[in-house]
């Protein structure tokens, strides 16, 4: 069952445009995410999934339109947003333990000049327990595998005690074990908070997804996965590296076609 949409949305985008160096990455995107919804953003590389997540975090300002989180400005509301970044650059020699990294989720809750408390410790411990990463807590972060590190990053986001959880490609670059843990965890978490994740492949998690958004510069589809046009549903089963030759997406199939299906 999809959660009710009668209350105010936690995330609301109205006619949002975004650009890097004057070239538009997102055009005219509008969507609403309600409490306890699990939303999957899909679409090709460069389609704007990461850009949309950056907008939701205030890391990027829209060139047009409005982003509202918890009914207010992003910069204020993001204290209640947990964020799991897509891993790109990383210093393997950085001398910090998994525990110290997960505890960084408490930063916003403990302002300047205020040390972490025992309560923070308990929250971090619970978050690591939930992601199955507590046994890694003494390990240096650089010695962990991609999947182990991803679980620590999810624990860091949960340590925020967020009302909204944003995950950028949480299932890429992880081993099968971590993938299974994350795929089981997200539906469970979505009973407590709104979740927006970007992903190349939603495959196994799809039955739990309430809304799917297909981004290719514009939001070509946003709604329940079951009601998506066939050309988009087809991409749910596509492998991680979506490749138009083997798995034609709605765009290579001809955008007009999608527009037609949406109409």
């Amino acid at each position, binding site marked *: 069952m999809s959660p009710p949409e009668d209350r105010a949305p936690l995330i609301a985008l109205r006619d949002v445009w975004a650009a890097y160096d004057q070239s538009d990455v997102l055009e005219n995107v509008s969507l609403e995410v309600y409490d306890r919804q699990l939303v999957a953003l899909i679409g090709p590389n460069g389609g704007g999934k990461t850009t949309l997540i950056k907008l939701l*975090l*205030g*890391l990027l300002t829209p060139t047009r339109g409005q982003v509202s989180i918890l009914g207010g400005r992003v*910069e204020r509301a*993001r*204290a209640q*947003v947990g*964020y799991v*970044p897509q*891993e790109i650059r*990383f*210093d393997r*020699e*950085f*001398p*910090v*333990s998994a525990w*110290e*990294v997960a505890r*960084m*989720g408490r*930063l*916003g809750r*403990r302002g*300047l*000049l205020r*040390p*972490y408390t025992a309560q923070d410790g308990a929250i971090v411990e619970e978050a690591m327990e939930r992601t199955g990463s507590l046994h890694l807590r003494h390990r*240096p972060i*650089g*010695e*962990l*595998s*991609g999947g*182990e*590190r991803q679980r620590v990053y999810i624990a*860091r986001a949960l340590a*925020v005690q967020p009302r909204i959880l944003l995950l950028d490609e949480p299932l890429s*670059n992880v081993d099968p074990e971590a993938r299974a843990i994350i795929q089981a965890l997200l539906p469970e978490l979505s009973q407590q908070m709104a979740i927006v994740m970007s992903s190349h492949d939603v495959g196994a998690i799809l039955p739990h997804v309430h809304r799917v958004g297909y981004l290719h510069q514009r939001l070509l589809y946003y709604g329940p996965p079951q009601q998506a046009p066939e050309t988009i549903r087809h991409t749910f089963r596509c492998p991680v590296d979506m490749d138009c030759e083997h798995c034609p997406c709605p765009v290579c199939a001809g955008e007009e076609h999608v527009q037609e299906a949406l109409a």
Partner: protein
Amino acid sequence: MIEALQFGFMRNALLAGLLVSVACGVVGTLVVLRRIVFLSGGIAHAAYGGIGLGFYLGIDPLLGAIGFSLLAALGMGLVELRARQRADTVIGAMWAIGMASGIILLDLTSGYKADLMSYLFGSILAAPGSYLWWMLGLNLLILALVALFFKELLATSYDETFAITRNVPVEAIHLAMVGLIALAVVMMMRVVGLIMVIALLTMPAAIAVQWVKNVKWAMLLATGLSALFVLAGLWLSYSLNLTSGATIILVAGVAYLLSLALSRLRRASAPRGAPAA
């Protein structure tokens, strides 16, 4: 070495070496982790402008250096925050402009200026007793700032983007960080000289980070290593009659290369952890 300690200047030199090691270990570790070695080099060289200004105005060159390097550090820190694309070019220019203005200001100053080389190449043996009190004060200031803002310094060094999403004032933390570098640089210039400050600031920390997987322990180890290098360098320079600053740097450099080779060896002999991402 023991008989050398009978001389007051030698005792002062040893104390100065130990004091400077604290700033070196603590600030150096952060510099290495944040990858702002080039920025630190810029601050160190621009500080020479402060020496020139001190002589020109007839005030203590140390005061001139503190003020000038703090200003240069804030300027370079702002450049790095605001103009990310060409930040290194602008910092390189400020680096040279700072040094050049120091030289010109000294040209414009009449009178005896024999002390100058000691700021460039270090002259720990000529450090006056009052200098030690300055160093102690600056050390306490550095330690207090790092202790107070440790969790923010760590978080912004590790993952600045995440820190922004937690509403950590990352720009203010960055500017505080470059301020710390300026203070450390001023302390160190008398020991190894402005030109070589960057080496003593980074090499002990770089070694520590190779062997210790905790930032506070790395700071402690870097402090110990720095003290060791300064003392060993001093002893060598005394017994072989060599320039003290350069000897200290060479000791540190040899240790750094050894550590680099050893840590490579260790990694090759015990492959573990994840495959490269």
